[in-house]
């Protein structure tokens, strides 16, 4: 009886999980399908899920009209560059907050997080003026800097949480054995916290890849990433849904593949320390 009941609840949870996953994935599936339709089929009042004339015309048009690979490369440089630079700053910051705490550490952490609550448009003009004066407008370096700063609070928080799960006695033992701070961080702390660091890196790559405020405002023709590429296919007057879907599919597929291959790492990292 107990086995049947547990079997039933397992089945219910499985169906529920698949339903929720389906709901989450449906807009992506719809975008992918629309990208293979003609513009007329894309706006049809009675749309078909699979039974339509499949075409690659939208992909051909998009590739002809826009320098996709330039935008793709800009996205790669900006997202990976800002995540690596962010880690370089966030690891020592999180180490000191986790292992050399003062009475103001918590307040400092909260203050860092509170900067994420400010609407980005609130600091648009000062940042734009700084970028203009330092010649950083429409440069990848400028975007790497701004993405690093935007995501730094999340990186520090994530790493701080992982580091807090590591028993300080292990680090103390290494200090007793004569390790310097650098050796302690690199040879003891980082290998233990590697899953957490990897998931922090991956999550920030995804966040930077998808960021669509600063990347649109601070770039023009040279450093524009895939978000600008997508934005160039929306139109107030005219049919554009199929081409926009093709552009969106080309922009999200790389990050979907990355997410697919690194999902174990991401889940392990995100649930690190969730159960004690």
């Amino acid at each position, binding site marked *: 009886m107990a086995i049947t009941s547990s079997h039933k609840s397992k089945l219910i949870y499985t169906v529920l999980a698949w339903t929720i996953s389906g709901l989450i994935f449906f807009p992506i599936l719809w975008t992918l399908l629309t990208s293979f339709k003609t*513009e*007329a089929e894309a*706006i*049809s*009042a009675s749309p078909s899920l699979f039974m339509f004339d499949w075409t690659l015309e939208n992909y051909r048009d998009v590739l002809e*009209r*826009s320098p996709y690979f330039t935008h793709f490369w800009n996205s790669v440089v900006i997202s990976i560059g800002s995540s690596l630079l962010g880690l370089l700053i966030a690891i020592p910051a999180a180490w000191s907050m986790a292992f050399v705490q003062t009475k103001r550490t918590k307040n400092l952490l909260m203050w860092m997080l509170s900067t994420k609550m400010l609407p980005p448009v609130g600091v*648009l*003009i000062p940042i*734009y*003026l700084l970028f*203009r004066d330092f010649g950083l*407008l*429409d440069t990848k370096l400028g975007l790497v800097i701004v993405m690093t700063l935007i995501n730094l609070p999340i990186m520090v928080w994530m790493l701080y949480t992982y580091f807090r799960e590591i028993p300080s006695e292990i680090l103390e033992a290494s200090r007793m054995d004569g390790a310097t701070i650098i050796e302690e961080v690199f040879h003891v702390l980082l290998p233990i916290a590697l899953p957490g660091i990897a998931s922090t890196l991956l999550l920030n790559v995804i966040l930077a890849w998808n960021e669509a405020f600063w990347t*649109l*405002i601070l770039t*023009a*023709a*040279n450093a*524009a990433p895939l978000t*600008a590429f997508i*934005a*160039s*296919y*929306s*139109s*107030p*007057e*005219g*049919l*554009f849904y199929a081409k926009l879907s093709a552009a969106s599919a080309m922009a999200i597929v790389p990050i979907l593949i990355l997410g697919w291959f690194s999902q174990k790492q991401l889940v392990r990292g995100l649930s690190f320390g969730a159960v004690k």
Partner: protein
Amino acid sequence: MLNKLTMLACGALTMSAAVTAETITIATVNNGDMITMKELSSDFEAKNPDINLKWVTLEENILRQRVTTDVATKGGQYDVMTIGTYEVPIWGKQGWLKPLDNLDADYDKDDLLPAIRSGLSINDKLVAAPFYGESSMVMYRTDLMEKAGLEMPKAPTWTFIRKAAKAMTDKDAGIYGICLRGKAGWGENIALITSMSNSFGARWFDENWKPQFNTQPWQDTLQFYVDVMEESGPPGASANGFNENLALFQTGKCGMWIDATVAGAFVTNKTDSEVADKVGFALAPDNGLGKRGNWLWAWNLAIPASSKKSDAAMKFVSWATSKEYTALVASKKGWAKVPPGTRKSLYENPEYLKAAPFAQITLDSIQSADPVNPTVDPVPYVGVQFVAIPEFQGIGTAVGQQFSAALTGRMTVKQALASSQRLTERAMRKARYPK
């Protein structure tokens, strides 16, 4: 030896020309005519080997946000900007745009349509060049009109439109007599309803900048809009903008559609439109008060004051808005694809008139719109379907939300107008009007 030296010298000259070539950055919207301009720009580069072009194509609202930030902070990221008729007078007065004094000798400014030119001039100096212009008109299904036993006049009244919409509606067959913009936004439902209100004798502000939503003409306008949409409009109309209504009309779901004149080319395009050979055109309706319910808009090319390459930018603006460019588009893409609504000469061209059945209505609509005197009673502002003040984007969208709520039935017409009056008064007080 001499030959080798000559070749070397030629090579060096070519290289130095390549090195000194200027690159100008052009920001534009993703509309069909702009895409054509980008495609054909190799002609400009061939004629001007010392100028390279870089393109930034964006969705309208993103472009507006981006170029506004750049021009206001003198960022200098762009050398040519595509801006609308709303921005030109505001930015021109701020000194953010370079006057277009050095357009090519054969540019022929006098060929520009007066209504369009007046909206782009500050103290009689052109500060932006029109790329394409539009007004609004009635597009209707000739077969459904005939079936309803009615005949569309060239210049219909709102009363006729309501009657025709009712007669053409067949909800069981999924055909709705009229499709109008319902999506909230200053460039969406507000563009339509403000133009409508002009023909009902309403205005946004009186001469002292006092909001006028508490007047009878506004009550009449909004009540008419809500009633006609309830009777004959499609379901979920509050989510419909230009593209949604275009899709409905092209798939045969609308009897009439009152919207931008550029839609004429879309609804008669046999590739996309199922009703391409059953479409008629008429002027936007009126109420016998001397003003029709049509708007006036143009996408224009302007050079920001912060551009350091204004000479090269000026050459490009001259080329892209010239008669020569019109001829180039006609030769490569056909007359129907020529950017409309900017030059008188286009409407005197028999080949264009033949290719575009909506050409005369477009011209008549543009010429009848007066951005300086848009309403029956005098107003302190410029703009037909908008008020050319910086605050309008915010106020217009907020008022658009009230009107959209009235359309869905979440508010009564009276409540929507009272709320619009309150929020506009508050915004104008904050902005310290009258100035």
